[in-house]
């Protein structure tokens, strides 16, 4: 073979040059690729130049202001370290806020319709959640959200679920943090109003709902003159089924309490695991009646120097309920007061007058009670409480027979902070923070006992008071009510803002004030004011952002967010259809940038219409809306979501429906007609 070496060389060269040519092109391709993907150069600030100084001067900023700005400013695209879930107050919603930037990220629709999210604006599934929570069957379109509670594992936030209570109607909602949507609303079958919801036990076995204004159990009438006989307080323990992501109503139960006005609660943890603590006021059992020349409530409920801290053995209460020692009203179980006393489930301890918060320290050793008309916080020792109960050392019993522990037996210490102490949170440095409503300040004070070694200050001592603006209610330190507080930040939730913001008329925004608590001793720095213009928030919780693992889009096309599973009526491209059975018309529609299929939906007046729409998109943020005028419908169809609307076509006409999310350049063209023939 290869008789001619020249010929052999020729084809060899041809192949090599071909290889080089192809290889060369490939290499060129690679280089271009690298050019595009090369990371932008990062310039590190080493010193503030003249420009920064000039801006500070022009804007009249002090060095302190500049530092505060640097601590909170987020360059575009930078994400916050923490996320705060705040009650939205009268809005009935939950606010999601980035910390430290204090940027509002979302307003989650809970008790109130929220059109952008398609929450209660026509979607059959969301309507069902809202209507399940209607007290007494009346369509209720607002709530007074108070205390959000993140689900916990071993006493630390796990980022899976959020619970929030509605004070106005004694309701509880469950939000799934995979998609930040409300999945369940329950109305308390026994109570009219509740303030102490929601607080979770360390593994979220129970969600605690403390009461508020005493009423006859089961929401019925009794004359106010029969107050002591017929009116009752209440605490409810809702059993959470984490697997289903729902409260299990049948496994939940309540405890009948004397008709004091129970307030906030907190669940014990570690040392106090298995116990629940609730404050109360109006142990005077005042019934008001200013118009009848009786003392008004504000005076009547503030007569006594001491009210009662409720100490509840939840572990044993659950056993008593499981043993069937319960009664039922409206199909809901509760442990009668006398049973609780007989089974040793309930004790009282005196607490300084008209308290607001009871907050358990991270290790569960102490309970901090702030009596809002007393300048102290009172610290109770769980060890001493257990001891006193074991010795059955009681001062006396309340009028209903509940044993009352002796104040000096269970008190660890009282720390004088200032006027109007309300709520307390904790950090990792062994400090506690208490809001002072009347002083308009946040107090930092040192814990003693097990926390003494964490700081170099004397124990149980006020260290500093930082003025806030104004009339501060709750406060939230980062993970500050868990077993693992890691607070760098604290947010003071001010009820009044007076002069802090542009005047927007007589109804002023609330003020969330961000405070840097990372330095020890008396060093606290106010960083930022965030106006809240949607309602009066109460409590908030702040979680490390990396604990949240929410979906970027629904896991598969045709997803039912309300079941967190494939939707029974999902459809795919090519299978869209309209079917008629008598006067029942069923529509299976798809939505994709930038069209609905079908675009003509032809029906007759009087038809009953069931209409499923599947957003078949997989791209992040490719949400479509579905707005149907005159029928009060707007849906939010997030990537992969299927949702259903159902209505009687009682009005004829040519109704133009359209996509109400600006999904694409041809968004306006994403429309169609529902043609209802007379």
């Amino acid at each position, binding site marked *: 073979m290869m008789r001619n070496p020249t010929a052999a060389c020729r084809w060899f060269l041809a192949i090599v040059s071909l290889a080089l040519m192809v290889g060369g092109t490939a290499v060129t391709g690679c280089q*271009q690729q690298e050019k595009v993907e090369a990371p932008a150069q990062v310039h590190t600030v080493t010193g503030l130049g003249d420009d920064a100084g000039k801006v500070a001067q022009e804007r009249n900023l002090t060095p302190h202001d500049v530092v505060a700005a640097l601590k909170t400013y987020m360059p575009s695209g930078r994400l916050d370290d923490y996320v705060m879930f705040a009650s939205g107050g009268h809005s009935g919603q939950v606010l999601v806020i980035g910390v430290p930037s204090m940027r509002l990220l979302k307003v989650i629709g809970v008790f109130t319709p929220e059109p952008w999210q398609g929450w209660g604006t026509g979607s059959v599934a969301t309507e069902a959640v809202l209507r399940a929570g209607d007290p007494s069957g009346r369509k209720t379109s607002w709530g007074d959200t108070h205390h959000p509670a993140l689900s916990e594992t071993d006493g630390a936030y796990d980022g899976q679920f959020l619970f929030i209570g509605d004070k106005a109607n004694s309701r509880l909602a469950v939000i799934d943090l995979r998609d930040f949507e409300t999945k369940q609303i329950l109305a308390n079958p026994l109570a009219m109003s509740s303030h102490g919801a929601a607080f979770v036990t360390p593994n979220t076995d129970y969600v605690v709902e403390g009461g508020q204004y005493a009423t006859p159990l089961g929401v019925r009438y009794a004359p106010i003159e029969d107050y002591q006989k017929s009116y009752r307080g209440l605490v409810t323990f809702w059993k959470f089924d984490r697997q289903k992501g729902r409260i299990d109503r049948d496994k939940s139960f309540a405890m009948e309490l004397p008709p004091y006005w129970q307030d906030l609660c907190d669940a014990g943890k570690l040392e106090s695991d298995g116990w629940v603590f609730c404050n109360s006021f109006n142990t005077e059992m005042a019934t008001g009646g200013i118009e009848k020349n009786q003392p008004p409530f504000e005076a009547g409920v503030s007569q006594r120097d001491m009210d009662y801290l409720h100490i509840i053995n939840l572990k044993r209460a659950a056993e008593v309920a499981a043993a069937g020692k319960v009664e039922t009203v409206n199909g809901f179980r509760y442990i009668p007061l006398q049973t609780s006393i007989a089974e040793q489930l309930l004790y009282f301890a005196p607490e300084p007058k008209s308290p607001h918060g009871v907050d358990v320290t991270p290790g569960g050793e102490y309970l901090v009670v702030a009596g809002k008309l007393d300048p102290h916080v009172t610290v109770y020792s769980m060890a001493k409480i257990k001891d006193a109960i074991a010795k059955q050392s009681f001062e006396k019993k309340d009028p209903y027979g509940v044993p009352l522990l002796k104040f000096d037996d269970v008190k660890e210490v009282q720390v004088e902070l200032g006027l109007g102490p309300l709520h307390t949170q904790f950090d990792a440095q062994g400090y506690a923070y208490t809001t002072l409503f009347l002083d308009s300040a946040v107090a930092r004070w040192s814990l003693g006992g097990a926390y003494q070694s964490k700081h170099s200050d004397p124990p149980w001592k006020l260290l500093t008071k930082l003025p806030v603006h104004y009339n501060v209610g709750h406060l939230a330190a980062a993970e500050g009510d868990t077993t693992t507080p890691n607070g760098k930040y604290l947010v003071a939730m001010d009820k009044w803002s007076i002069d802090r913001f542009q005047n927007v008329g007589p109804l002023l925004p609330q003020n969330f004030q961000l405070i840097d608590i990372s330095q020890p001793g008396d060093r606290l720095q106010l960083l930022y004011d965030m106006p809240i213009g949607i309602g009066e928030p109460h409590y908030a919780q702040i979680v490390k952002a990396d604990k949240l693992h929410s979906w970027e889009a629904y896991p598969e096309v045709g997803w039912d967010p309300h079941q967190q599973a494939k939707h029974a009526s999902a459809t795919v491209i090519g299978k869209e259809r309209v079917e008629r059975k008598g006067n029942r018309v069923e529509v299976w529609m798809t939505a994709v940038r*930038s069209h609905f299929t079908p675009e003509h939906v032809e029906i007759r007046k009087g038809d009953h219409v069931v209409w499923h729409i599947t957003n078949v998109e997989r791209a992040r943020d490719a949400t479509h809306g579905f707005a149907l005028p005159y029928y009060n419908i707007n849906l939010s169809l997030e990537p992969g979501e299927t949702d259903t609307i159902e209505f009687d076509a009682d009005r004829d006409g040519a109704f133009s429906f359209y996509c109400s999310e600006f999904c694409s350049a041809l968004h306006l*063209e994403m429309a169609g007609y529902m043609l209802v023939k007379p």
Partner: protein
Amino acid sequence: MKARIRTALQYAERPALRATARAVVGPRVPAHELRRRPLRYWLPTLLLGAAAACLVASIFLPYWKLTLHAPQYPKGLHVHAYLDRMTGDVAEIDALNHYIGMRRLDEAARLERSLSIIAVSVIALLVAAAVFIHTRFAAYLSLPAALFPAAFLVDLQLWLRHFGTHLDPRAPLSQAIKPFVPPVLGQGFVGQFSTVARVEAGFHLALAATAAIAVGLYFHWRAYRPLAER
């Protein structure tokens, strides 16, 4: 194996057939020669064998990657083309392509994709067979494999041209986006998108096979030509 082929040739019955077969497979290496210079004869075998192995391995790796950059896709959109399939953001790219009336990516090169695994396996086998052929026919057997990377790119470019120039005139943006030819390698632009096409690991393996064949055939020529001339 080599010994068995030699035996088969020796016992071939018809002299004419025997002569043709000998002309195709070429001379055998005498045992003493193989012992004297093993590297000289093993080198082409190893290189051609490696080429066949590279080709077979390339079946399991992506050959080509297209990345689309646009402001609203901060992570970009990516399509990986294997010999028989495409993976990545195919659905999203199809969704975007419908605006300009481009056909679904799934409709491209269906025949090629359905045959590619078998075809590459066969041409790899031909290279493996060339190890036993000691004449210029070894080059003929290796040629399809050597040319495969170029053929892949040419076919891909033809499909890109076909897709880019056969846009549905009834598409929403058919007035705004004129027919275009996306480059098979390097950067292109369409609408707000800049595209970068590059070859991937599978292609690099196929290219390595081409190089191994080229070098292997050179050593093949150097080793077996003197035997034939003897």
